[in-house]
């Protein structure tokens, strides 16, 4: 049947090549006649259409059909269109599209119910390619967009949420195993890209997945900060890969990932302190033997996490505490690494963020210089110098002194230290006095306060004729132990006596004393039994002290009364809250001074904007600051509009 029609058509086209002008009308007439009488004839019309569609259907089911005759027939229908009616569209395309719709709706549903999502994705990928080929093969070009739309809709959009959420290896499952399933993820993205409305769903699913994974990680591992940060870095790498490879580095996907990390990292303050602990570990031991570029690489990863943190002021407080400990206890592997870290923090947050931290590093360096100068100064002094005996102030002739290494800290930079001084033994006092006069000569106008709560001492201890050891103890312990020097061997000292002479604060005293009485390092024997001390306890030197080591470092026991390790709290430290209040008020005053008046919402927005670099100010806190300023008459409300504030000069 088709063939005969083809022949007829060929005949009609031959007629075309007869001189144009007249033949157009004849041609048109011919076409019209042909169309009305034959193509639109009841018998022909339906059959033609059914045949065409049946062919397409067969091809979809895998059979081969005659593309040529299909093309010719469809061309014919196209050509027959004109004067307002499109035969191709009305008699064929409409039905074709409907048919396509039904076919794919059916197929996709069936396939999806029986196969996994990745398989389904592969299938539709091939189907889409196939359909698109159909256009150049025999369909008219105008059908392409409509066909594309239907195919996308039936194959992708209609099933998007199933594909994402399905347990049969849906998007979520693929993400979980993203290492192995990158191809599938990539295919999914590429397909969804063709139906842009579904892409948003995909991105949201990515966000949800990352956020949930992050939250679980926190619940699981936050108690172990170092492990937590390592897992966190791994998590980030994993998702970054997904975005780069599967999502083709798409900006919106990157943004969603950032939002996900932002949200779970800032929900828990312990993330900030974990990061600090992780850096501490790197500085103390992790960087041993690393090259400069390795250090750089590690720190870069750390900074990536740092960027997500909203409350950068909390991070600073913790970092300062850890840094102080590292510096004072000489635990840093490399001062270069410390400097590198600060440089990175500075470029993230501006120089003000790191001035104090840098000041701490500088203090250490200066102290070393000072010590060198002091050593040179000591060497130059003749042994019976007047200066010396003046400085030590002791009445005896023997120059009791000891070697001392001093670190001078600028008080504004370091975390607050308690400055209650205890009474130190004369040797140490002499050395301290010497140094102090040397230092104050160099820097007149400064004031030195000795922080006896920190510091260590090395004592040579002879427990018996054979047992001689070097003990590395804290300053307080040195004070305690040297009290026994003046007494004979078996003498006892009561707790109260120790307090009276050394003037060490009670809680600290207990801690340092107990550390000297532990089973492992029983340097002193105490009368009371058990772990704790009683108030009327007394102590004596343990003559039977034994140890395999020559040099012994006496560790301090942890006591629960001491403030909890920063890592265990999940509240904002009080110092930070106070700091924020001041900053907030200062910012409000500054803004109002410049603007003279401002509406409530504008003021809140501007304050938030200015403080955001450092921390996120809750609108309620800003409001509290405003109210405080209202009460202190820095501001007032406008009488016309209670939402407007006016600056009172």
């Amino acid at each position: 049947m088709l063939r005969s029609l083809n022949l007829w058509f060929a005949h009609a086209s031959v007629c075309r090549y007869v001189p144009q002008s007249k033949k157009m009308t004849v041609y048109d007439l011919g076409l019209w006649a042909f169309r009305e009488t034959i193509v639109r004839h009841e018998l022909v019309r339906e059959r033609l259409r059914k045949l065409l569609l049946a062919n397409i259907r067969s091809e979809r089911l895998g059979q081969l059909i005659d593309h040529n005759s299909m093309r010719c027939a469809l061309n014919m229908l196209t050509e027959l269109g004109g004067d307002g009616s499109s035969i191709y569209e009305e008699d064929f395309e409409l039905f074709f599209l409907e048919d396509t719709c039904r076919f794919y709706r059916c197929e996709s549903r069936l396939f999806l119910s029986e196969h996994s999502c990745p398989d389904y994705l592969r299938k539709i990928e091939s189907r889409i390619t196939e359909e698109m080929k159909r256009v150049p093969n025999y369909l008219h070009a105008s059908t392409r967009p409509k066909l594309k739309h239907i195919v996308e809709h039936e194959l992708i959009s209609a099933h998007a949420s199933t594909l994402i959420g399905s347990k049969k290896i849906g998007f979520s499952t693929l993400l979980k195993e993203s290492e192995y399933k990158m191809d599938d993820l990539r295919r999914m993205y590429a397909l969804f890209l063709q139906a842009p409305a579904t892409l948003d769903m995909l991105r949201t699913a990515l966000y949800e997945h990352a956020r949930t994974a992050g939250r679980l990680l926190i619940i699981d591992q936050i108690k172990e900060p170092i492990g937590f940060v390592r897992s966190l870095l791994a998590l980030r790498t994993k998702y970054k890969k997904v975005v780069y490879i599967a999502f083709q580095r798409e900006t919106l996907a990157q943004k969603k990932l950032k939002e996900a990390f932002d949200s779970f990292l800032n929900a828990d303050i312990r993330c900030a302190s974990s990061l600090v602990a992780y850096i501490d570990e790197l500085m103390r031991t992790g960087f041993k033997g690393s090259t400069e570029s390795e250090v750089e690489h590690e720190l870069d990863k750390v900074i990536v996490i740092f960027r997500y943190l909203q409350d950068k002021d909390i991070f600073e407080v913790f970092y300062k505490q850890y840094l102080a400990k590292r510096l004072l206890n000489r635990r840093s592997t490399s001062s270069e690494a410390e400097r590198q870290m600060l440089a990175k923090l500075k470029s993230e947050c501006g120089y003000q963020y790191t001035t104090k931290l840098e000041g701490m590093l500088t203090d250490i360096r200066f102290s070393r210089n000072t010590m060198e100068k002091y050593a040179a100064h000591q060497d130059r002094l003749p042994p019976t110098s007047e200066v010396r005996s003046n400085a030590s102030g002791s009445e005896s002739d023997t120059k009791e002194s000891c070697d001392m290494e001093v670190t001078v800290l600028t008080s504004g930079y370091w975390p607050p230290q308690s400055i209650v001084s205890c009474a130190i033994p004369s040797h140490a006092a002499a050395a301290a006095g010497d140094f102090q006069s040397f230092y104050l000569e160099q820097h007149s106008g400064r004031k030195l306060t000795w922080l006896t709560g920190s510091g260590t001492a090395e004592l040579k201890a002879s427990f018996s004729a054979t047992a001689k050891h070097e003990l590395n103890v804290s300053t307080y312990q040195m004070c305690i132990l040297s009290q026994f020097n003046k007494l004979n061997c078996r003498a006892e000292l009561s707790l109260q006596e120790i307090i009276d002479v050394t003037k060490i604060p009670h809680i600290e005293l207990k801690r340092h004393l107990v550390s000297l009485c532990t089973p492992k390092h029983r340097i002193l024997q105490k009368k009371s039994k058990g772990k704790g001390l009683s108030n009327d306890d007394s102590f004596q030197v343990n003559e039977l002290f034994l140890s395999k080591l020559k040099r012994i470092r006496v560790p301090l026991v942890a006591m629960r009364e001491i403030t909890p390790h920063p890592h265990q709290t999940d509240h904002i430290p009080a110092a930070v809250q106070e700091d924020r209040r001041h900053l907030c008020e200062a910012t409000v005053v500054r803004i109002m001074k410049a603007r003279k008046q401002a509406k409530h919402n504008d003021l809140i927005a501007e304050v938030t904007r200015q403080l955001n670099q450092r921390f996120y100010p809750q609108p309620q806190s800003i409001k509290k600051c405003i109210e405080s300023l209202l009460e202190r008459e820095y501001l007032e409300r406008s009488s016309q509009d209670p939402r407007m504030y006016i600056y009172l000069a």
Partner: protein
Amino acid sequence: MAPKRKAAAKPASAKKAKKPAPKKPASPRGKAKPAAAAAPTQALDFATYADPEEGFVTFEGLEVLADRLGIDASSDTKLLALCWRLGAEKPGALSEEEWDRFASSPHLPTHGKPLTVQTLKAGWASLDPNFLDNAEFRPFFKFCFEFNREGTKRFLERDTALALLPLCIEDRSKHTLNFLEFLETKPEDFKINRDQWCSFLDFSLAVGPAPEFDGWDSEESSWPILIDEYVEFVQEKLKET
């Protein structure tokens, strides 16, 4: 204003012991406490009512005046309105200069008339704050706060506010009862500051009554936090019932 003293007489009577009386207790002022039935044509002079040691007319003097006018000093807001119109600057005190405004202020019934208690009594009703429209009422309401402070303090004690607020605001607020209930939940040493006091009026004019609180925007509220807490309090209360 007398309400302060009356509040001391109420349950929180411990307050009276705490607050020192604004002037010396035992000064002989025979002229300050004459017999109740005073001559109606008594002159309104400063000397009659002022406390000679302070040099001001204080709450005591005002009580005397109230007596003669036949009004209750603790509950009649017209007395407060009087002090307001006289432009009293210091809390609980009227200076001679301010007193002189009896003659000069057009808002007072004694303007252009003989300065006697009689005249004042005759025109007493004109002082009623209810005649003021909302715009005029605002400064008066603020004055109520200012005048009842203690010295240079910038707040009112909770109990003072509890007594004073309903008196001053009268019918202009639909929130009064709820707000008083809310204030009672605050501890005894709670203090209310000027911003909170004045905002209560503005709030009452801008935001509809419970439970809808029309015009209330919890997200972007620029009202003092006390007002926010008040709204929450009422909403919680309604949830429970």
